[in-house]
C-alpha cells in the first residue's frame, strides 16, 4: 500500500521545522503520522533507532494499544506529516484491510530491527 499516495492529499497536514520534537517517549499520544515530505528521526533514550522518510509511518504504537509513546520522534529536516487520529485509524482498519497489513509489516520490520540489537 502506498501511504504517500493515499495521504498526500489529506486535509490534516502539519509542518515541522528541522530539529522540532514531534513527540516524546513516555508522553501521551493520540495521533500517528505519515511522513509526506522530509525525514524524521526515531530515537529511544537519546539513541537513534531509525530514520523515516516519505510514505513511512511513525507513532502508530500509541494508537494501537492506547499506551504512552514508546519512542521520541524529531524532525531531521523541515518536514510535512499527515495526521491520523484514533477515529480515522479505527476507520482505516475497519474499511481498508491493506492498511492493517501495511502497519503489521512495519511492526514486523521494527521487531526484526530491535531483535538485531539484542
Amino acid at each position, binding site marked *: 500500500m502506498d501511504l504517500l499516495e493515499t495521504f498526500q492529499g489529506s486535509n490534516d497536514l502539519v509542518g515541522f521545522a528541522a530539529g522540532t520534537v514531534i513527540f516524546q517517549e513516555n508522553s501521551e499520544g493520540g495521533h500517528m503520522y505519515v511522513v509526506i515530505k522530509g525525514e524524521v528521526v526515531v530515537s*529511544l533514550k537519546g539513541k537513534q533507532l531509525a530514520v523515516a522518510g516519505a510514505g513511512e509511518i511513525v507513532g502508530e504504537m500509541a494508537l494501537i494499544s492506547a499506551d504512552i509513546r514508546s519512542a521520541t520522534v524529531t524532525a531531521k529536516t523541515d518536514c510535512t506529516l499527515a495526521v491520523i487520529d484514533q477515529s480515522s485509524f479505527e476507520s482505516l*482498519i*475497519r474499511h481498508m484491510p491493506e492498511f492493517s497489513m501495511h502497519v503489521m509489516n512495519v511492526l514486523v520490520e521494527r521487531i526484526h530491527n530491535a531483535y538485531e540489537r539484542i
Partner: protein
Amino acid sequence: MSFLDIFQDWKDVETRPAGTTIFSETGKADVLYVILAGDVEISLHGQVLSTETKDSIIGEMAVIASASGSQTVTAISEVKLARLDREQFNHLIATDPSFAHYALAAMANRLRVVNAFISAQLEFGE
C-alpha cells in the same frame, strides 16, 4: 461474541507437551497459532523476552512478512494451539476488523517488550 470465540471450534488444533520448541529462531515457519490453553516462553539468543498465555498470537511475524524464525517459542506447560496458515490469517484480517486490531495489538506489545529490553540494556550501558 468475541472474535476469539471462533477459535473454540477451530478445526486445526494442536496440543504440545511442556518443553516443546514450537518455533525456533533458526527455523522456517509459515503458520501462526492462537494459544487456546497453556503458556509459552518467547526467547532470543537464550534470553527470555516474555511469557504468553491464552488468547495470545504467536508466530505472526513469519506469516506476515515471510520472515524466517526470528524468535524461539517454547511451551512451558502443555499448550493447546489453534493453527492458522497465511491464507486463513489474511482472510480473518480482511473480514474481521476486531481480529486485525487484536493482531496489531499483539505485535505492538511484542515491540514494546523488546524495546523495554533494549532500553534496559542501554541503561546499563551494554
